[in-house]
């Protein structure tokens, strides 16, 4: 049994049991959410399909002046650090490596080795890493080490009742409509004790940027996806969003209202995408 006094605040937020009067979501409520979601895209102009990620949702919920300019994705030290950092964290959690420094070096060496030997299909990031100079690679390595260390030192991975799953994104494809898919991104997933002693899933989401009013909405979509995924027998119990820059976190215990908020967030995102598409079409026509 873990001593709650010795746990870091973030770990405690993840592993502490839910309140005894916590109302877990029901199967009927989940089915209703699934139906509502499919109806959201059924008659929507602008076609689709709509594959909504946390990035798309965050931008849709933000004010127009806060929306980042649309830039083509490219690998950089900042875009690569999470992928490398998570892989390093997995190696640490499995005991393959013993420090973030070793873990990140292991992951980068493996990526470069795979590209050099052509042993298996490699990712675009692996190819990008393999083509960097030693100094460029060191810069990427440094960013990934910092990212990984902050998470490794803030969460006590041994405190979970079940070994945590690290860095696995979950997708939910609507069974009623091929036009809608939602992604749940969480860096660490495990279990805690729900009401009545039943295990529920808990999810840690690492956040960037300033604390924003829409964060509960963003996290509610993670809860929604976890509830909708029929492949996972555990119901979602808690979502924790954490800002490493400030050490602050927000905790969202998942109840029916959380799922409703998730559906509303998806609706708002789709509306925002539709408005953006209409605006772009009007601009194109005007230019023509």
């Amino acid at each position: 049994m873990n001593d709650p006094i010795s746990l870091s605040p973030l770990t405690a937020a993840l592993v502490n049991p839910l309140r005894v009067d916590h109302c877990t979501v029901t199967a009927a409520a989940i089915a209703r959410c699934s139906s509502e979601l499919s109806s959201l895209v059924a008659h929507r102009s602008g076609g689709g399909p709509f594959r909504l990620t946390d990035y798309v949702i965050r931008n849709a919920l933000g004010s127009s002046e806060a929306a980042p300019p649309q830039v083509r994705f490219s690998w950089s030290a900042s875009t690569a650090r999470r992928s490398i950092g998570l892989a390093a964290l997995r190696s640490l959690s499995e005991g393959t490596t013993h420090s973030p420094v070793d873990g990140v070096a292991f992951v980068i060496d493996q990526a470069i080795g795979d590209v050099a030997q052509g042993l298996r299909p490699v990712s675009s990031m692996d190819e990008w890493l393999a083509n960097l100079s030693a100094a460029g690679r060191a810069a990427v390595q440094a960013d990934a080490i910092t990212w990984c260390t902050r998470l490794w030192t803030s969460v006590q991975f041994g405190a979970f009742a079940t070994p945590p799953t690290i860095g696995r994104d979950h997708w939910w494809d609507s069974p009623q409509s091929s036009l809608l898919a939602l992604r749940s991104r969480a860096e660490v997933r495990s279990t805690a004790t729900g009401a009545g002693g039943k295990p529920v899933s808990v999810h840690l989401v690492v956040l960037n940027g300033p604390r924003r009013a829409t964060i509960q909405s963003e996290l509610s979509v993670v809860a929604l996806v976890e509830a909708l995924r029929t492949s996972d027998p555990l119901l979602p119990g808690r979502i924790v969003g954490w800002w490493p820059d400030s050490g602050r976190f927000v905790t969202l215990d998942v109840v029916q209202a959380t799922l409703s908020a998730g559906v509303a967030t998806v609706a708002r995102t789709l509306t925002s995408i539709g408005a953006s598409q209409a605006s772009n079409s009007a601009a194109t026509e005007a230019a023509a």
Partner: protein
Amino acid sequence: MVPVALQQRPARQPKTRPSTPIEPTNAGSPLERGDFLARLRDRSALRPSFDPNLPGGLRAWLEDGASALVATRGDDAPPMFLGPRLLLGQPGATASARQAGNLPSQLVLSSLVHALFTQLVTIGSIDDPLTDALDALSLHPNKLDLVHHINGLDRRARSALEADLACHVAHLTSLTPAFLPGWLPRTDDRVAIALAGGRVILGGVFDLLVGAPMPGQASVCAVQLTSGGPWAFARAALHYLALLETLRNGSPPYRLALLDSSVGRYVTEDIQEEHVRAMAAHVVTRLTNLGGHHE
């Protein structure tokens, strides 16, 4: 007054560091890098505990200052990001002076030296200083203007920059120890503390942190690099970062170190509660003044 150790060392030419890290047990050896490491490790087992109410008290104090600023700017104003340059008043650090095409030479040099320090901590060696630094900076989209600026320098200016950089690198390689992976060294660790509901954000970046944060105990050591400029400002900036770390993890770093790559000197000092309280008082005054409420 806390004792401060100041060391000055002669410059050496850049060279590749040995790949074998200096073992903690060798900290007292006469190796130059070992001297610095020994200063970081000295009495490090005696980790001080701080009042658990300290972060809450500091935050409440800072919130008062932030509310004065917000009262002037209005609730709907965009978030105001404040860093050490603005809060501690480093001369010539205005935003307009840092615009692309008008980059002060000190800022250019500082960016290059910091990139090389990160490389030295991460892989332990530097090959060609300017090429390495540009390779590293080009991987950060927000540094591309700087890279273009340097690539656009004429041969004479570039040579002068290379000579300057070589001097800094010589000092860096002579001072920077190899940190064991178990010390959890990480570079460019960003801290951002939101006040007044996110309307005011105090930000800063630790150049290097070692050690893991522990609940209720000061357990992290912070190393900051300065490539010139006022020494007092660099030291105050480090105290400011210690304040932010107190708000982030509940305790300040137990030890601070400042490396000056321009002359090859360093200072270490143990952080005390009075340091972070004094810095908090300064920041509150500055926030109040920024809000136009001069007392």
